[in-house]
Structure formats: C-alpha cells, structure tokens
C-alpha cells in the first residue's frame, strides 16, 4: 500500500520510495529512507502531514502515492 492509504494515527515502515530523484533526495534530507517509520497525523486538501523522525512533515498526496509502506500498526 502507499503512504496515502494510511488512516489518521496509523503508522508503517517505508519499504520502497518510487519517487523521482529530486523528491527522493528531498525525502532523504528529512530522514526518510527505506526502513523509516512514518505515521499519518493530519489530513488536508491534497496534502497530509506525517510524523517522521519526531518532526511533522507535510507531503502532497501525489508524491506520497509513490512511497510504499508495509507493516501497518495502529
């Protein structure tokens, strides 16, 4: 499933980042690599905010669509 499919409060481990290089490098900067735990916190119009390594990061859904997560927990 993709990051977008998480529900508020759910978290999962990133298994694959299929974004283009530009976004992928940006995500690395924020500490998001394959294996990082990520939790959906806020939902807005076309953009959600996730808890990544203790900080709240907003990512547009069309980018989040390419981030694949597994092992979903509540």
């Amino acid at each position, binding site marked *: 499933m993709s990051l977008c499919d998480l529900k508020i409060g759910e978290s999962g481990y990133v298994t694959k980042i299929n974004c283009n290089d530009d976004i992928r490098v940006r*995500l*690395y900067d*924020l500490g998001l690599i*394959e294996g990082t735990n990520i939790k959906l916190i*806020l939902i*807005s*119009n076309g953009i959600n905010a996730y808890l*990544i390594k203790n900080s709240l*990061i907003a*990512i547009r859904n069309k980018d989040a669509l390419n981030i694949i997560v597994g092992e979903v927990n509540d």
Partner: protein
Amino acid sequence: MTKIALIGNPNVGKSTLFNELTGMHQHTGNWTGKTVGIAKGYYKDLEIYDLPGAYSLIPHSKEEEVTSDFIINGNYDIALIVCDALVLERNLNIVLQTLEVTNNVILCINLIDEAKKNNIIIDYDKLASILNIPVIGISARKKIGIDKLIDTINNFKSNNSFQINYNSKIEECIKILNTKSRFEAIKYLIVGSSDKYINEKVKQCRLYLNDNNIDINNSILGNIVKNSEDIAKKVVINNKKYNFKIDRILTNKVTGIPIMIILLVLIFYISIRGANYPSDLLFRLFNYIGNNLKNILINIHIPSIIYEPLMDGIYRVTTWVIAVMLPPMAIFFPLFTLLEDLGILPRIAFNMDGLFNKSNACGKQALTMMMGFGCNAVGVTGSRIIDSKRERLIAILTNSFIPCNGRFPTIITILTIFFIGVSSSVFNSFLSILLLTIIILISIFMTFIVSKILSITILKGIQSSFILELPPYRKPLIFKVIIRSIFDRTLFVLGRAVIVSIPAGLIIWLLNNIYISDMNILNHLSNILNNFGLLLGMDGVILLAFLLGFPANEIVIPIMLMIYMSNNSLIDISNLNVLKNILVSNGWTFITAISVLIFTLFHFPCSTTLLTIKRETNSIKWTIISFIIPLIIGIVLCFIVSNIIRVII
C-alpha cells in the same frame, strides 16, 4: 580574527544564537526559510556568519546553494553546526555531511531546555566521542551554555573526526575525482560539475557505478541517513508524548481556512482600530509643530520661496506618511511576529496548499503572500524559499496583489468614509470587519487566479514537489517580539517610506506651484489624465496621485488632497468628516470609492518592490511583466465594475 560559519537545518535557532552572540537583530521566526541571505556579525574577536538554513549540503533551493557554496569553498575557520535537540537524528545528516568537508567542526545542540521538558535525553559525551568533535548543549533563547560554547570555540583544536564509509566502488570514485574534500567529490557525483574537465571524469565514474548496479543517491545520501540513524540510536532516548489536538483543529479541512482568515482579519482590525487614536494625536501634534515652525521661519524673515516648499511640501507629506503609517504598523508587525513565533505560518501554508496546488503553484507561496501583507518587497525577497524557478516567479509576479501596509491606510480611509460611516457603533465595527475580510479575500482570490493563468501560459511547466515542515508550537517571548518587530520591521519600513516621501513632497509642491498659463502643472497633468480617469470611474487627480505615489503607496491620499485643495493651506485632515466633504465636493461618489479601492489593490508595484523584483529575477523582462499584469487587471476591473454600477444606478 577567527571566522565562524553558523549552519544547520532550517528553524533550529541559528539566528537566535547569532543575535545572542553578536547583539544584532537578525530577524528570527518559527518557520523554515527565515534567513535568506548571509548575515555577518562580531563577538569579541570572532567573526560570525549566519548562513541560511539547509537540510543538506546538496542544495535544492537558492538559499541552500548559498550555504552549500560557503561551506564547501571554505573561507572560515570553524563550522559551528546548530542542531535542534528535539529532532537531533535528522539534524545529524548535515553534521555528517559537513564532516566530509572539514574536521573543524563544533556541534552545538540547541533547545536542550525544551528537549528536557519533552523527556528527550541526549548523551552529549558519547556523541562527542563518536564524532570526535566538541558537542555543546545550549539554549539560545534561555541563554544556557553560551559561555561554554565560547570557551570551546576559543580552545578549539582540530582532530580526525568521524568519517562515513561508503560502498567500495563509491570510495574508488572519490579517489579518482581527487577533490579538495571528500564531500566535493560526493557533490559532483550527485549533481555534476560546471567544470568541463571534472564533469568528464564524473561521467566516467557514473558509468562505472551504473555498470556495477549502484544507485548513487541511495548509496551516498541514503547511507548518510542510515549512519545518522545508527548514531542517534546510541545517544538519544526519546520518550516524548505527542499531542496534535491544536493542529487537528487549526488544520482541519473544514475549519482550518476560516479560522486562519478570522485570525488575519482580527489582526488587521486591531491594528486599524487601535491606530485611530494615536494617528489622530500624531496629526494634531505635527500640525501644531508645523504651524509654529512656519511662524518662526516667517518671523526670522526666511523667504517664502524656501519655507513654503519646506513646510507645505516636504513637511506636510512626510508627517502625513508617519501619522498614517506608524501607529497601525507598530501594532500590526508585533502581532504578525507573534504568529510567526508561535509557528502559525507553516500551518497556513499547509491549509492553503490545496488551493495553490490547483493553481499549479507551490504551497510555500502562502508564506510569501503573508509576508506581502507587511511589505511586498519583503514578500518578493522571501520567495527564495520556493525551490522551483517557475513557481518562484509565479510567487514574485503575484505578490503585489496582496495589499501591503502602505496601502491599508488608503483602503481603510475610503472604506470608513464611504461604506461604514464615521461614527463607531457596534454595527459599524462589524461592517468594517466584514468589508475588510471581503477585500482581503478578493486579493487572495486574484492571487490564485493569476497564478493559475501564469502557470498555463507564460510560466507553463511541471509542478515541483512540495515538502514542508510544520514546526512544534513555541511560546513566543512577548517582550522580545515587541522590541524586535518595532525596531527591525516597523522603523525599517517607516524609514524607507520617509526617505521617499521627502523628495516626493518637494516634487509635488513644485508641480503644485509652478504655473504654466494660469494653471499649475499638477492641474495640467490631471486634466490630461481626466478623461481616462473618468472612464475608469475615477478622475485625473486620482490617477495622477497613483502615478506620483509610485515611490510609496502611502502618499497617494495626501497627494490627492493636495491637488484638490491646491489653493488651500493646511487643514485638519485627521477629521474624516472634513475629508469626506473635500472628496465629495470634488465629485467623489460611491462609484469613485469602489474604483479607487480596486485600483489600490491592483495597479503597479511600488518602486521599492519593482527594484526588488529586478534584483531577485535578474531580468528586465519579468520586472516589466510584474508592472504590467496588475496594471491591466486594475484598469479592466475598474472599467467594467464602474460602468456596470453606472448602468444599474
């Protein structure tokens, strides 16, 4: 003199530390992208450079490029890296990257007081021994650990610090490229080089890595992140309890945007209402001083050719600008700075991203738009935080649609006189809030429309990704906020307005007092413009006032009044009833008021903003376009709206 480069992720308190050390007032705020240029300051024999915040030394935006170039090219003795104790793990990325550039690094972990409050425990000694560099915990806001930091800087000795081990193939490439620092080679592998000779080698390395199935980004940057993760696991214990209740309300799909708009309007309303009395007082004071000063000049036999331009030109226009601008700004800027410090601005960007997304623009444009409410030139400079060039241009070209502090007095005066009524009843207060909200919504709406039009015409292109950090809320230091916003912003913007109003006052007086065949130049000019003005629901005088107000929008109304009353001397223009009589007796109607409001929102950017646009875009073409777009919109809207109302009435 020891040169210190201050670097770190955005919003970790670099500027706060810089101000603490240098006693300077670099603007700080709780959001990413506050510092857009390099600031330099001194503390004893330390020369300190405050660099823009960067997540990485591999730059994505203009501001990150500044930092990356500065650190890699190395005209400094010590890189002082500031980290946020609450998100140390992520912050370690740039630490590890910097260690690939130089061993001369001191790590300064800021906000240790907040970390403690949040049950985050950091083992500084262990971190220092892993990285083999000095690690100091501080709180720049609370002035904790600053002395120890200074001691460490003064006694600094360089060691062989921590080094990352990459995949052996990458290490081979670093050797082949043989650059000054390991990081330079890494940067070339990732982004290439402008040097032809180096780039040739880079290409070969990339081919080699490709042949060996090595993903460069992942094996370098991903590896650095992995290293940060491993180190953080050893030195950080995080028992923080997260609470997002406030955010759930402020960023709610339904309630988020209305709450933000109410907040914004409330700030404007408080600024305007609160400014009424002090503005009036200033008017009277300046009037009193002006009259006495003029009498003194007459009594000591100064010729009228000198005192008239001085008092009726320069003094009158300049004091008007101060009386109109100073009180609302002295209220608006501190309130706005409080919002900044709290961390509200990124939430606004988050809420509005959906709309900017639909306009094919960047969500960070919400931030530059907000800055535009203070001053459009500041909003234009702030657009540097937007990574994509196309989206940055959209933000720059549309910034002047947002009414700045210089235009609000005009809007308020006209709203009050023609739509609300001069008395201050509860109903009138409510009405003025409502009208103000509509005006703000119109300007924001126009920003979206024009952004969209630009992005499907002259600024076509693929939308870049948008990733934004929402920092935790921080309790602002209220006293500091007031002092800082008054000195740094209010007086700065006011000073600039005064500087342009002095020559403007003189020029207007000259145009007003030089006669060509029985009529002064101002009247000649306004006669020429009159037919065109009438077509737009205004008149020649109003258009002339906007033209002469090019250096600063706040002088538009004073110029108008000077022309209308060319033969009159000073009157008490603080009295809105008197003002209304003057305007009405010069043919102003409801239609004129509407047209002037529209034209105040949409005409051309002021000279300062245009110069800033020229500097930021480095292009005459875009500067001209930024001049023309709002002008055409203003002319077309005024023409249509005024004629429609005329037909209806």
